[in-house]
């Protein structure tokens, strides 16, 4: 029953209700965390057990919200598909939205396939208001919320889950999920293309969990959509500072935002820098260029000759170029090593400064080649065999 693929669910549901569920299952993205679609489980029927065919009309909908997953029961009647559904809001027995705030319920149109999805979105909105109301139990957290609300950058893209961590001890906890207003649009496309899934919207979410009402135990966590994560160098590359004790979100969140923005800027800059570097080399070495990465500008191969000695130079540009030095790999075209590879030598340290521009780097590189090649030649002749 769990982890049911959408297609299976669609097959089992009553035909009249199928379009409604279709839009939910296939296109339904609700809330800030829209990387995962809404999930449907526990399909059951309200008809008698002798009713034939697919006649399921009630199911559980899993909705990601503020780091939690809400499990709401949605109850239709297969014999009366034109009627609007009923809801059971799982653990939130006190959540009772006002029907007047749910226009898609009041004017339920079973013929509109999007109707259920829209209704769910409206319910989520009401749920969000309900959770914000619950924050009133802790003045500290309420202050956090209000201060964030005032800031237009964060106020509109916030999900709050305020709940009791433990119903019996009554410890109050809350989680803030914020969408960080970082512009990812300038990230080079090649970086974002390399993901197996349909990436959807590029988003960075900051989740801050308050384990107690006095904000003494705070755990922040940064969530990036997969493409962004890859573009920025993987999850290990991104460390956010710990939440300062006694600090508040209105100070911390911009901090994280800035950090992320800087990283993104760096990556963008790096791309441009690399491009500049490659362009400079191209202009300097002209016909000597064998190949280069024209998308990401991460690699460059040169075929050079010095005193009738031909050699290849592979240049690998790191992600955080120009901060990090490019790696030069010299390779002989004549000599083989014992393992059958072309004899090569890697040079990671050579005169370099990140402050040089592309032209300067190309010139210096040329000079370095000239100085290094005799050494390499000797080495090739000594260690390699023809």
């Amino acid at each position, binding site marked *: 029953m769990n982890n049911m693929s959408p297609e299976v669910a669609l097959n089992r549901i009553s035909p009249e209700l199928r379009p409604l569920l279709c839009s939910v299952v296939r296109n339904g993205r609700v809330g800030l965390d829209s990387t995962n679609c809404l999930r449907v489980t526990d399909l059951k029927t309200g008809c008698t057990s002798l009713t034939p065919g697919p006649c399921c009309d009630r199911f559980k909908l899993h909705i990601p919200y503020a780091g939690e997953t809400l499990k709401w029961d949605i109850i239709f009647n297969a014999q009366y598909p034109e009627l609007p559904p009923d809801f059971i809001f799982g653990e939130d*027995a006190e959540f009772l939205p006002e029907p007047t705030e749910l226009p898609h319920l009041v004017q339920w149109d079973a013929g509109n396939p999007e109707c259920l999805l829209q209704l769910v979105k409206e319910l989520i909105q009401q749920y969000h208001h309900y959770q914000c109301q619950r924050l009133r139990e802790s003045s500290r957290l309420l202050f956090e919320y209000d201060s964030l609300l005032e800031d237009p950058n964060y106020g509109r893209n916030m999900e709050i889950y305020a709940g009791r961590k433990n119903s019996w001890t009554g410890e109050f906890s809350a989680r803030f999920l914020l969408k960080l207003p970082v512009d990812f649009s300038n990230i080079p496309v090649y970086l974002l293309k390399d993901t197996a899934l349909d990436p959807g919207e590029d988003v960075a979410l900051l989740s801050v969990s308050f384990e107690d009402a006095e904000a003494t135990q705070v755990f922040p966590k940064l969530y990036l959509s997969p493409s962004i994560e890859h573009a920025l160098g993987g999850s290990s590359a991104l460390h956010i500072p710990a939440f300062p004790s006694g600090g508040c979100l209105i100070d911390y969140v911009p901090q994280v935002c800035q950090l992320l923005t800087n990283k993104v800027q760096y990556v963008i800059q790096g791309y441009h820098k690399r491009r500049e570097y490659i362009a400079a080399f191209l202009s300097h070495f002209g016909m000597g260029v064998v190949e280069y990465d024209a998308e990401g500008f991460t690699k460059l191969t040169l075929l050079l000759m010095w005193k009738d000695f031909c050699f290849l130079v592979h240049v690998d540009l790191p992600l955080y170029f120009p901060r990090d030095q490019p790696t030069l790999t010299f390779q002989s075209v004549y000599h083989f090593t014992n393992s059958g590879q072309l004899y090569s030598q890697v040079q990671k340290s050579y005169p370099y400064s990140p402050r040089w521009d592309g032209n300067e780097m190309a010139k210096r590189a040329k000079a370095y080649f000239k100085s290094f090649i005799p050494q390499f030649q000797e080495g090739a002749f000594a260690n390699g065999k023809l």
Partner: protein
Amino acid sequence: MAASISGYTFSSVCYHSANSNSDHEGFLLGEVRQEETVSISDTQISSAELLQVVEIHNHDPCAQLFSFYDYAGKINEETLNSILKDRRKNVIGWYRFRRNTQQQMSFREQIIHKQLTQLLGVPDLVFLLFSFISTANSSTHALEYVLFRPNSSANWSSTLSRYNQRITLTIPNLGNTSQQEYKVSSVPNTSLNYTQVIKEHGAEFFDKDGVMKDIRTIFQVYSALQDKVQAVCGEVEQSERVKEKNQEDVNKLKQQIALRKRKTAEEERMLREAQNADSHSTPEENTEPSEASPLSRITFHTPSAPERPSTSPNPPSYADLLSQDDSLLSSSSPPTSAALLPRPQAVGSPGHPTPSPLGMGLGLGLGLGAGSNPVTTPSTPYLGNGDGSSSDSLDRQAAGQEDDEDDDDDEEDEDEDSSEYENLVSEAAHLPMVSASVLAQGRPAALSPDGDARGSQTT
């Protein structure tokens, strides 16, 4: 709060629900009453418990869903009235049936419940939720029902309030099979047909006040028995009084006898002394002590005689409280009256004899009457004392000789008879004196509070 539903109403709701091909809902009709239980414990603090009991008499199913409310869950009062009609005042709750769902009130049900509470003016409106769970292969189906009272306690945490809202619904005679008897349902039957039939045929069983005829008859029997018992009580009281009076007379006469004996003994002694003063023979002196001993014995014991009236078996209250004519009592009671001494017999049997003028009372049949009249007839038809002692003592007494033996016997009998009802002190004092004659009698244990002790001591 407790709730009960009659078995047939419950099965009717289940039938309607199970036969519908979708969710089903309807109204519950009945009444709510308050039961107050006052419990009194040893600490003398009485505590009263108020219990609200909801009784579901009937149900009114709705023909279809959304029949009285719209998509937003807003109730249309006119439609509601047209559905309920005049049953509106009997509505105490509503029910809903849905298959394969959780036992929790849904969003729309909560909204409707709030509005119904307001519109119908029932503060404790209940909601009965049926859910029907079937296993995947349809091999097992379970019908679950929960009765909610959502309008209670709004200030609790959500988890607690969710479980606090549930009330147990009892269905009489359904459930505990260890109970062997069939309980009459407390939920009344409000069907019209039923009341009609009862009205028609009820006259055969009920009288005009609505009480079952059999009960009245039994009550009459009971009253008659009570009257008879009262009458017997009166008779017992009278006989007790007569007996007490007789006892007093007996005691007086005994005193007189004792006094006379003392006088004669004194005179004889003085005579003997005068005689002995002339002669110096010692054997006569020796006989004196032996003769004197019974005298001394007598003198030793006579002080106890006046004690007896105070320790008479009859409490003084009889004589004190009611002044009664003692004309019935005479010291010279005819011996023939002894024949009429009542024996213990069953009440209601025809052979119940009239109580004798002696008023000896039941089971008291003592030989006192005979004892106090030693000169009366030699034989009495009444054999044995009431305590079952042998009639030998009576025969001896009937001989009526004023000798030592008689004295002893008298003393004995006095001791025996009176000590049946008197305190142990006087009796224990008497015991050592009744040695030989008692053994000769071989009487069984007396009918006294310490009868067994007596018997063992004598044997």
